[in-house]
């Protein structure tokens, strides 16, 4: 029993309050007393309900009304009126709501103590009842507001009770289902199982429970998946029913199904991805196999992670080493042996350095002549490197061919350029060659025209000779050019017949002597047959070219020697001058068309003469050769075979 008693004293005077205090302390130690002087306002301020109210009627008398006001204010607590003469107004005060009227002496007596204890006992009982009531209230609240449906069934399955959650979730008014057969709401699928479960449940002791799952019909007709936990409380005096806790698991059931479908879908997806990856791998393998390149991949530590089968074809002896898991530098050492790259070879160190840190590309020629190109590519994702090896032998061969061709082309172009330049010089020279004799002809004609009658016969004759020799020079020039042209177009006709070569030589020299009175031509002919089968015109023109060259290119020396003799089966004619000569490196070109030696500068000429001579002599199956020294002179030797039947 609690010893704590909240007491309230309502009094008009303070003396009595003090006395009361003492009483309470003496008799009811530990009790909390609140002392309040009675006024309506001060009573209003009391914030908690006391267990006991003392209404003091001593110094200042209270009326029954006043007592009634206080007891009304605290209807549930015990009100004791303390009065010196309790009997005087007892009836009036009891009527006004007081529970007891007693004097202070009564309060101190066992009667008072008994009264207080009774009050305490009542108070405790009231508190317990209140707690039970609150607990029931709470329990009801839980059941009423819980989302778990609680259903009590009788042994025959009729519904004794259904919690409000049932109504909310299943859509039924509760009163419509009470007394109904629970199983009539259950879908026939699984109904038999549920009924047998229900029978089993009724055999269970109250401490155990069992789980059941079934489809329950909502008021709108659709079936919800319900999960039930059942307990057998048939023998519990209060309940006397089978209790089912139902939970709607349709949502989670659906989620479960969805999850299951999704998992299946995922599995499908994984399988598909795996197939795709395998397919991609297979394709990559095919591509690598089909590629003409050999591929090798290594990680950042230089360990081979992949080597394509082509390595076996390129380096058959090293195939074992060039494989997954091996160190690339170890493989390199074996491969260098196979390709015949010795350690002394300067390319060895170069290649080694490259393989240690492959970057860009490298070309290499193996001992067997095969060219390969190594090309490194970094794989950013893994920091590894892929090196492809390509056989570029064909490419190298074509490159070399191309280089050779372009060189040939360059040579041809240079040659073409030279020819063009030579032709330009030729045109210029031809113009000069024509214009000089024309000048003589024209000049002499002008003189004869203007002073023909005043100049003497001798002078006139001299002018005529000058004109004729110039004409002769022109004719020879034309013949040379024409001959060159005929040779070019292959239309030169050789007309051989027996003729006197010695006479031809002497005639040519004599004619040249007439034209060049400042030079002395020495002629010596001996031992050549009197009759040789030749095209006289061609030989005469050839000799005339040689002799006029000798004169032309020896401006400061006046002697030209022409000699003819027999040597073996050949008639040899040598024409020697003491003129400007030809530099040694130019001699080989002197028989080329349009070529003119550097020492010929300022001396007129077409660059055709010697070329024509060579062709004419070759038409006679003879040869022509030239020896020369700059500043000393030149000797041209022409050899013609003796005998008939060569044409």
């Amino acid at each position, binding site marked *: 029993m609690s010893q704590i008693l909240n007491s309230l004293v309502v009094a008009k005077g303070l003396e009595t309050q003090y006395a009361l205090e003492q009483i309470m302390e003496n008799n009811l130690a530990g009790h909390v007393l609140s002392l309040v002087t009675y006024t309506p306002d001060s009573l209003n301020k009391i914030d908690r309900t006391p267990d006991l109210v003392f209404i003091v009627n001593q110094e200042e008398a209270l009326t029954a009304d006043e007592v009634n006001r206080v007891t009304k204010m605290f209807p549930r607590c015990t009100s004791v009126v303390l009065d010196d003469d309790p009997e005087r107004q007892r009836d009036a005060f009891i009527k006004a709501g007081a529970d007891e009227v007693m004097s202070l002496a009564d309060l101190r007596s066992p009667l008072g103590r008994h009264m207080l204890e009774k009050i305490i006992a009542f108070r405790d009982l009231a508190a317990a009842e209140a707690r039970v009531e609150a607990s029931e209230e709470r329990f009801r609240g839980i059941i009423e507001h819980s989302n778990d449906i609680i259903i009590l069934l009788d042994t025959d399955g009729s519904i004794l009770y259904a919690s409000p959650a049932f109504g909310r979730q299943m859509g039924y008014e509760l009163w419509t289902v009470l007394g109904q057969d629970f199983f009539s709401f259950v879908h026939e699928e699984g109904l038999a199982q549920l009924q047998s479960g229900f029978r089993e449940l009724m055999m269970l002791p109250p401490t155990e429970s069992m789980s059941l799952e079934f489809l329950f019909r909502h008021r709108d007709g659709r079936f919800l998946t319900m999960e039930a936990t059942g307990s057998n409380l048939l023998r519990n005096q209060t309940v006397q029913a089978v209790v089912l806790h139902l939970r709607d698991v349709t949502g989670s059931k659906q989620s479960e199904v969805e999850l299951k479908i999704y998992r299946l879908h995922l599995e499908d997806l994984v399988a598909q991805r795996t197939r795709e990856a395998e397919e991609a791998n297979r394709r990559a393998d095919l591509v690598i196999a089909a590629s003409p390149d050999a591929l090798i991949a290594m990680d950042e530590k230089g360990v081979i992670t992949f080597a394509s089968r082509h390595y076996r074809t390129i380096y058959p002896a090293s195939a074992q080493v060039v494989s997954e898991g091996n160190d690339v530098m170890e493989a390199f050492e074996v491969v260098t042996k196979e390709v015949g790259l010795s350690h002394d070879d300067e390319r060895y160190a170069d290649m080694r350095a490259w393989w240690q840190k492959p970057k860009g590309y490298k070309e290499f020629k193996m001992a067997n002549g095969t060219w390969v190109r190594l090309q490194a590519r970094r794989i950013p994702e893994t920091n590894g490197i892929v090196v492809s090896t390509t056989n570029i032998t064909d490419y190298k061969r074509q490159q070399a061919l191309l280089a050779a061709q372009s060189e040939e082309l360059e040579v041809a172009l240079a040659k073409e350029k030279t020819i063009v330049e030579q032709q330009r010089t030729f045109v210029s020279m031809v*113009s000069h060659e024509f214009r*000089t004799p*024309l*000048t003589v002809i024209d000049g002499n004609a002008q003189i004869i025209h203007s002073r023909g009658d005043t100049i003497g016969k001798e002078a006139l004759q001299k002018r005529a000779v000058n004109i004729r020799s*110039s004409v002769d020079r022109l004719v020879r020039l034309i013949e040379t050019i024409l001959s060159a042209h005929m040779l070019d177009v292959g239309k030169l006709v050789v007309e051989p017949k027996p003729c006197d070569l010695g006479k031809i030589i002497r005639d040519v020299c004599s004619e040249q002597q007439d034209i060049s009175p*400042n030079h002395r031509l020495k002629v010596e002919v001996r031992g050549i047959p009197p009759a040789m089968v030749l095209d006289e015109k061609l030989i005469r023109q050839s000799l005339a070219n040689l002799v006029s060259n000798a004169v032309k290119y020896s401006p400061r020396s006046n002697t030209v020697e022409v000699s003819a003799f027999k040597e073996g089966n050949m008639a040899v004619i040598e024409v020697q001058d003491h003129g400007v000569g030809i530099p040694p490196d130019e001699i080989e070109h002197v028989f080329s068309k349009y070529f003119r030696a550097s020492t010929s*500068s*300022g001396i007129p000429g077409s660059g055709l003469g010697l070329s024509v001579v060579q062709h004419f002599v070759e038409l006679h199956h003879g040869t022509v050769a030239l020896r020369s020294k700059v500043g000393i002179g030149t000797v041209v030797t022409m050899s013609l075979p003796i005998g008939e039947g060569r044409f």
Partner: protein
Amino acid sequence: MAKILLIEDEAPVREMLLDELTVQGHSVIEASTGEEGLEKFLEAEPDLVVCDRAMPGMSGYEVLERIRGAHPQYEDIPFIFLTALTDPRDKAAVDHLKPAAYFEKPVDFKALSDKIKGLIKS
């Protein structure tokens, strides 16, 4: 009339020009090579030069080049080129040496004579 130096390697041409210029009343000094011509030029200091352009050894171009380069005091002596080189590029190549005239062969004597007369008067 005038003292003319004639430089020409081709004998028939030189002889013919000598005849014509003499008949016209000039006193003509002959030279058959460039070297000889340059020598006689410095020696005789002629009033006018008639010179072949293309000659073996020292060409007419070189003769004038030497005169213009080494002997600027003779700048006023007219220099007439005779040439069988008719390519415009050949003619352009001597322009910087400022020849007084440039005659292509064959030479019209009347035109040459008129040119000489004009150059001497000025």
